[in-house]
């Protein structure tokens, strides 16, 4: 699938606020966003303060859906 080139010159990763409390450091600043790590892409919910992962869900597709791979 074709994607548009971003219109902004510099691009930032969106971090979506998530509800909850970090079980490690009790901070409530949690965010959901994708990361690339061992094993490929993951959708994570992480604590902004201590980077603990409250959720790590493998995402085999990642950023790009390849049209021909969907047939």
């Amino acid at each position: 699938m074709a994607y548009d080139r971003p219109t902004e010159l510099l691009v930032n990763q969106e971090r979506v606020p998530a509800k909850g409390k970090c079980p490690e450091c009790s901070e409530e600043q949690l965010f959901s966003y994708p990361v690339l790590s061992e094993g490929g892409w993951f959708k994570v919910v992480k604590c902004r303060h201590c980077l603990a992962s409250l959720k790590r869900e493998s995402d085999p597709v990642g950023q790009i859906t390849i049209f021909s791979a969907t047939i």
Partner: protein
Amino acid sequence: MIIDESTDRIRNLTEREFEAEYGASRYTCNVLANRSRFVAGHMSTNIVTRAFSPIISLNMDYVCAVVGPPELDYPLVGMNQGNFIFLGSLATGVRKTVEEFGVDRLAPGDLLVSNDPYRVGNHVNDACFIRPVFHGGRIVSFTVIRAHMLDIGGIIPGGFSLFKKNVYENGLVVPPMRIFEKGEPVKEVLRLFLDNGRFAATLLPDFFTINSSCALGDEQIQESVERYGLDAWLGAMRYSLDSSAEAMRRALQTLPDGEYEGEDVLDTDGADSEEIYRFHVTVIKKGKRVEVDLSGSSRQARTSLNATPLDAQTSAALGLKVLLDPQTPFTSGTYRNIDLVIPPGTISSAMPDASTHFYWEVQAALVNALINALAEPLGSRAIGGLYGSTNLHTGSGMTPDGRPWFSAAELEAQFGGWGATDAGDADGHTGTFTLNQRLTPTEEIERRVPVLLTAREYIPDTGGPGKYRGGSGFRKDSLFLADGDHWLMPLHFRFPSGFGVNGGKAGRVGGSWFFENQDPDKPECEYRLVGATDTDGVVVSGVVDENGALDENGEFAFFARVPYWTENKGSTLRWITNGGGGWGDPFEREIEAVIRDVRDGYVTILGALRDYGVVVVGDPDEDPEGLTIDEAATAAARA
């Protein structure tokens, strides 16, 4: 739920605990971990000694690897000392290829191939070959080769064009396919490659060599499983991964907690000189966890100056490894404690239909930005910046007797100066951290291309001054013996790349020029040899004064202001590369080291005084061993 990130060390396990965890003794696991790298090394020997493509046999633009089975999620467990630009694609790219093809469709002796950058990273010339290794009816490993195909079609022979506007101009895109089935070639798939690529006769035997190399690895893995048992083989894989993860985790813990930002900048994407491309890296370190965030980086380029996230992962992990943990083997366990955050649509995470042909330039800039970000927290362990771009060249034309000539990735200035470290001065003629390959030998270039390489020498006062000096810039001159068109793609002559650390200074920025032959009717033996200090060439790229000489207060000359450079026979292409950054205060450099640098031509007498506060007396050209120091003047200069 907390993701378990145990801080227990593997070495603290008792023998009994170790065997329970990894299914074999500590000794056996070490033997088999080494065995994976040994297998990859044998595959490498097989391919490098038999390949017909010079980019494989001479430049060693490939990597051989052993990847774990689906039940371990396709991890990279062993590789040869190959080209590191491929690292990030090896685990995730293999999984993508195998799962899309269908793991259940695989049989012993099969060889899969895919080259789609949006599936397996890199660019379309770098095909990924994957052979499943079966034992007792199940897949126990994959032997993998990622190798550069000499040609894959597209708008330019060899493919090295910055000016590709989309993936379609790259050439052939091959989704996951089976190129060998049960050991036999699938002729229609071979034909797909051969009918789309130039130099098909060279490519054909290489497919068989790649297949035989993967088969050799297969055979050696089978022997190992036969001898030590499957539990031990798989356990050793997990041991390799856990060892890498632990080594990186412990290395990361030596960084103080904090958020560290760094940047590198590439001049332009070649479409115009207006948009400058920024690589912004934020390293967030909290306890044992690290995030590398590329937010704030430039959007994807309009040309082929792009990379995929898998290529960015290579840079993030390799950069951290170079800085913090250079001693232990690389596996995909190295990534375990590093979360890479990459917004979609950046120059490091281009989206279809962008071309990613120049991904290695993106990788190099990312590593430079990363080591820049960590310069302060690393303190004495910081490394100076590198030379920037590989300054690619593609040329073609007709010889005087009417034969076509062609050259790609040979007549550029691909190597350059590294940054100095606390271990000492840096080398001035090495590839980027991610680009572990060799240059084509001069004799081979001159045999195939109508050109003479007339100079490759260091230029004094170009390495970043420091207690330890950055690698020097060098001059490379190529005298063409035939008319030709030249595509020149230097990407880091507008801004310094070799930043200094710990008080060290930046390396000098270089440039590129063409010296036209004013009298092409002269015989070859009378062609002008351009002198080292001659400055009457036309500047291709660099920040220069009105006469085209390097001047940091001058104007940037944009290399793509013409689509390509048409030059007559007898003209000379000149490169001057960027120097690497210095480490530490140059006024603390040992005086003996400064005098040695003056003797060896790395520093001039003037530079010794200006940059190092050392007053050298004598004539380095006529009496290099007779140089002396004016100690009183030096003490005054350094005071």
